[in-house]
């Protein structure tokens, strides 16, 4: 069963999806549902012996179309809506072992093409207001399948963090006549201490206001609102900087760093969101090589982050990690 339950205090939707309790949980490598289906072997989700990149509807979706009937009746206070939407799995490679960081720049460039295509196709559906592309990597984040993959949630509404980001971007634009993120890029470049990597068309930095110790933002230098509006050259440069940042993460402490990677794009609700600036945010859960940053009482209970580190120092560590950008933060194609 799944449905949307309105939280009247926080004024946001909560998705209930009880069937997800039964989803596949860390199966043995031989029974990975994201591997190709080999002759004589058990059938996986992908009925082919080989593939490049595959996208399919999640077997255990939080949102589906058509949505099932809600399990309970709504009241005046407790509103309910069907959990209408689409949940997809994006399988990056047929190779079970490895990570996005291990992919070649060509593979990452191909994946960018797929992400843009999914944003356009799903966002083009009339009941979809927001397309959230993301990757949960690592057991610390709670992944249930280790095969390299990401996910897409196509929502019938705009999720609350994104709505807040849109509100502040719009208000800033109205007040200053400029894009908020364009000014953040300007400020970060002027200071320079928090820049992690840069090429001609993209910049990566730990923002002044970082909530996680190694929280990296990647933004296009040109004002673009979503992936589909990136031209070929920008997509090439995005592949390059993604490879650099992901490789730095893995070289920071010599192990494959878990993270949440979230694409923030303009909604697809037919309104004008040209003020919004496309960005990718990474939230790694580690604060040192062997300590996790937990979202405890203050963060989970009050929504107020406490960062135990200085963004300036953490950015320097990432700049020094291979591929080193310590001397010159610019890495050209």
């Amino acid at each position, binding site marked *: 069963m799944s449905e949307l339950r309105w939280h009247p205090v926080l004024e946001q939707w909560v998705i209930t999806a009880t069937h997800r309790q039964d989803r596949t949980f860390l199966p043995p490598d031989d029974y990975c549902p994201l591997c190709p289906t080999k002759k004589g072997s058990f059938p996986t989700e992908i009925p082919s012996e080989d593939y*490049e990149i*595959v*996208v399919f509807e999640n077997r255990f979706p939080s949102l589906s179309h058509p949505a099932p009937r809600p399990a309970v009746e709504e009241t005046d206070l407790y509103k309910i809506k069907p959990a209408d939407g689409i949940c997809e799995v994006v399988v990056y490679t047929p190779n079970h072992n490895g990570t996005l960081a291990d992919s070649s720049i*060509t593979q990452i460039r191909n994946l960018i*093409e*797929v992400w843009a295509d999914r944003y356009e196709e799903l966002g083009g559906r009339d009941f979809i207001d927001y397309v959230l592309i993301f990757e949960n990597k690592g057991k610390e984040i709670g992944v249930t399948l280790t095969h390299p993959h990401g996910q897409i949630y196509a929502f019938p509404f705009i999720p609350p963090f994104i709505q807040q980001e849109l509100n502040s971007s719009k208000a800033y634009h109205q007040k200053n006549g400029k894009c908020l993120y364009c000014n953040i890029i300007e400020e970060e470049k002027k200071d320079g201490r928090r820049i992690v990597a840069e090429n001609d068309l993209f910049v990566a930095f730990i923002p002044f206001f970082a909530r996680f110790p190694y929280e990296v933002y990647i933004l296009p230098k040109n004002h673009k609102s979503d992936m589909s509006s990136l031209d070929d050259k920008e997509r090439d440069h995005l592949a390059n900087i993604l490879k650099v940042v992901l490789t730095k993460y893995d070289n920071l402490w010599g192990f494959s760093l878990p993270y949440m990677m979230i694409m923030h794009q303009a909604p697809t609700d037919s309104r004008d969101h040209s003020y919004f600036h496309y960005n990718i945010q990474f939230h790694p859960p580690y604060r040192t090589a062997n300590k996790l940053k937990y979202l405890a009482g203050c963060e989970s209970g009050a929504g107020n982050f406490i960062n135990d580190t200085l963004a300036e120092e953490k950015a320097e560590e990432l700049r020094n990690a291979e591929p080193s950008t310590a001397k010159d933060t610019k*890495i050209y194609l």
Partner: protein
Amino acid sequence: MKMNKERIKIEGNRYLIYYTFENDENEKSECSSCCCNNKKETDTKGEDD
């Protein structure tokens, strides 16, 4: 680069899309000046323990 899509139906009346690519030779060459291939030998802590 050219991207192709093939959509099929799978169990549970769900769709699956195979994406394939025709990359030019110059697209296949890796980053020409940066050190993306400098990734050190790593253990697999985090994901594959």
